């Protein structure tokens, strides 16, 4: 039995001790945001935040996240009440298929929380671990820039 704190709430989970956090979130907490993409930490579709860092939830054993604050895209807002970054992604229409988007938002969230005024170069480097195949990068970049420019801390 492990305890996971996800989006501010504690959950007791009876799961295999080697289960990666991704499967605990998706199948045992019914959270859709984090996606399976590669299982190897190469694409970022599974990105969530643990503490103040973006992590690949497909690699991190759920047990290792126990006792830490796990945040997923569901914790930032909802379709009806989107959070700051989510709203910027909607305004920029920054999605095509959207499979990568929850991971993109969580990685961007970590940057905005950590760096006061990141440069374009810093944004590109920070976002490099996350892949998008539709080529929506330019809009994702614009959405992140819009939030930074607004000065609103999400």
């Amino acid at each position: 039995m492990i305890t996971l704190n996800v989006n501010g709430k504690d959950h007791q989970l009876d799961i295999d001790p080697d289960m990666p956090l991704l499967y605990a979130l998706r199948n045992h907490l019914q959270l859709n945001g984090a996606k399976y993409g590669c299982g190897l930490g190469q694409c970022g579709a599974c990105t969530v935040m643990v503490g103040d860092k973006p992590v690949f939830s497909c690699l991190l054993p759920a047990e290792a996240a126990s006792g830490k604050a796990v945040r997923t895209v569901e914790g930032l807002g909802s379709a009806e009440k989107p959070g700051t970054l989510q709203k910027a992604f909607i305004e920029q229409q920054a999605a095509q298929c959207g499979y990568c988007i929850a991971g993109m938002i969580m990685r961007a969230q970590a940057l905005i929380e950590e760096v006061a005024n990141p440069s374009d170069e810093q944004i590109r480097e920070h976002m490099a671990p996350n892949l998008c195949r539709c080529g929506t990068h330019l809009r994702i970049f614009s959405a992140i820039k819009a939030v930074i420019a607004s000065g609103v801390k999400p």
Partner: protein
Amino acid sequence: MSRSQETVDQSRRAFLINGALVVGFAMVPGAGRAFADTEVDTLGTQVLAPDLPGSLRTNPFLDAWIRIDEKDGITVYTGKVELGTGVRTALLQVAAERLDVAPQAIRFLTADTALTPNEGYTAGSHTMFDSGTALFNAAAQVRQLLLESAARQWAQPVEALSTRDAVVHGRDGRSMTYVQAVAGVQLHRYASKDSPPKPADSFTLIGHSLPRLDIPAKVSGGASYVQDMRLPGMLHARVIRPPRRGSRLLDIDQAAIEQMSGVIKLVRDGSYLAVVAEDEWQAIKAMRKGYELARWSDGDPIPDSRDIHQLLTELPARRYPITNKGTPDAPAPHGWKSRVTKQYLMHGSIGPSCSVAWFKEGLLTVWTHTQGVYPLRAGIAEMLGLPMAQVRCIHVEGSGCYGHNGADDAAADAALIAMAMPGKPVRLQWMREQENLWEPYSSAMRVELDVGLDDSGRLQRWNTELWTTPHNERIVNAGRLMPAWLLARPFAPAPSVPIAQPEGDGDRNVVPLYDVASSRINMTFVTQMPFRTSAMRSLGAHINVFAIESAMDQLAVQAGVDPVQFRLQNLSDPRARAVIEKVAKAFNWPQKAAGPGSGIGFAFARYKNIMGYCAIAVQLHVQRQTGDVIIDRVVTAVDVGQIVTPDGLRNQVEGGIVQSASWTLYEQVDYDAGGVRSYDWSGYPIIRFPALPKQVEVHLIDQPGQAFLGAAEIVQGPMAAALGNAMSEALGKRLQALPLARKGWQQRI
């Protein structure tokens, strides 16, 4: 492998069977044009009404598209699916515009074999042309029938009536809702050839950017994808694949797997293996155990990637003449010869393919991110020996596919596994390495040009030979579903047949749109190939446009004319000229490259020579030490006919620029005799944020009242070609082997 070739007459090519290749098109009366839509009416659909516009040709009944009743209000159906390009929203805009209702008032359903029309595949930038045109007309005709019904009931002239927000208004303040008006109207009737006109300048939805319906859920963790489905009591499955095609299962310790925690069953049928478990992670662990324990025979040989372009000329093939006109052998005073090559590419969906299937009370339901629910249903029914009526395929979005990826095969997997677990819903997802090793690739190709120029700077002849494997291994039988190869009673794929011109297959866009009197173009279509290949965005157009536009730049040099000017002096199509002139102006052409290592490049194509126009200019610089290619600026102009949603179009064009840059600069499937090495993203690198173009400008040329031409694939070829031309200026040397800038490339040139 031996050489065996036969020359095939054009009339025997794919999908001409219906004898209705070229059809009249009229979106609004008077705006007719000739079109071929072989990708659609041939893949499981049948032309019933050749005179009707768009997909009304294959689904002529109005109530196949629109139903109105008390229970559900207004329901609009499309046989197309959302692949991430935004068509769900764009199609809804078209229907709402012509019904004269708010988009929110419509219940809009996409492909489902139990409910929607059969529109074959959602592919080839065809959706707006096929389904958009059908809805554009069907919705206007239904609205007209409602007006006439109200006019009859009120004994008022139709001209005195108007509609607003699903209500018909008449004289004396009378009104009735559409639901009331539909009483006494038979919508189960053939559509008419002509629809009530509406001037394009009075559109309130078409031509306006409606925010996409799907994005709010996608940015907030809503259940948006088949991967997110959870059904009561759902089990999880994983497949265990052979090491390569042709490998047969020798043995596996079934008991060792079935005794693992949570594992319910090892499904085994010949060389087909899958594990079913209560929990997904348990299924993955059992799958890994399966890979460890299964022993396989060697399988088919795989060539070395360095030899593939020679091999393409030696494998069994059929030769297709594409063009033969004028005097292609007459000597020309100036000319250019080239050989351009392309390696196998992957679709590279970020989410590996997934499907949920449930066999319950004799009915198999398959939720799938396929591009074509109807052809898939037929394939699955044949594979399982079930009557078609006992299989239902419902589209649910998946990760973007960009063509024929693992979607259909994963659906077949889910179906096979669900049949072994009657009564239980089963979710199956492929692992990353399974997607990379088993998805159908985009064909490796070889294109040879021999082009001549006269003394006045006009094209004199255009000769091309191209070699390709298939680009259209869609599901026309059970054997086109890869899992069916592995069964104890295996199915063989139907013979490969290329998509006919003018759409083309490997020969898509091989015919230049430029004015040239003499030309001979042949395609060698390789039918026996080391890898399964099928449709990926733009098919052969990616390399063919690259080859054509490289040659145009070389010929411009010989003619001593600026490359943009050279294109214009050999091109009479006014819409083509307009996109070229637009880009030249916006880019401030002619412009000198910034200095050593910098280059600018220009390119143009009209997709398939019958669809959207795209011109593009690229400025880049190359860091010779590191090999980094930095794209400083991209300027493009597109004309896709009547624009439905400007922002959606922009999104597609921007995406095409980035995706094509990735294909053209970096991508190739790595393999050698030992097998495919590109089983993950480190073995198949694609573009990442740091390599993005620094600046992208998209100019849209609207054509109110003209046909919808589709957008998603128009940029792929021109972007590749403009990159090639810019690289060539930057290096002072023309690169002709794609990809252009794969790791270490600068040491190889």
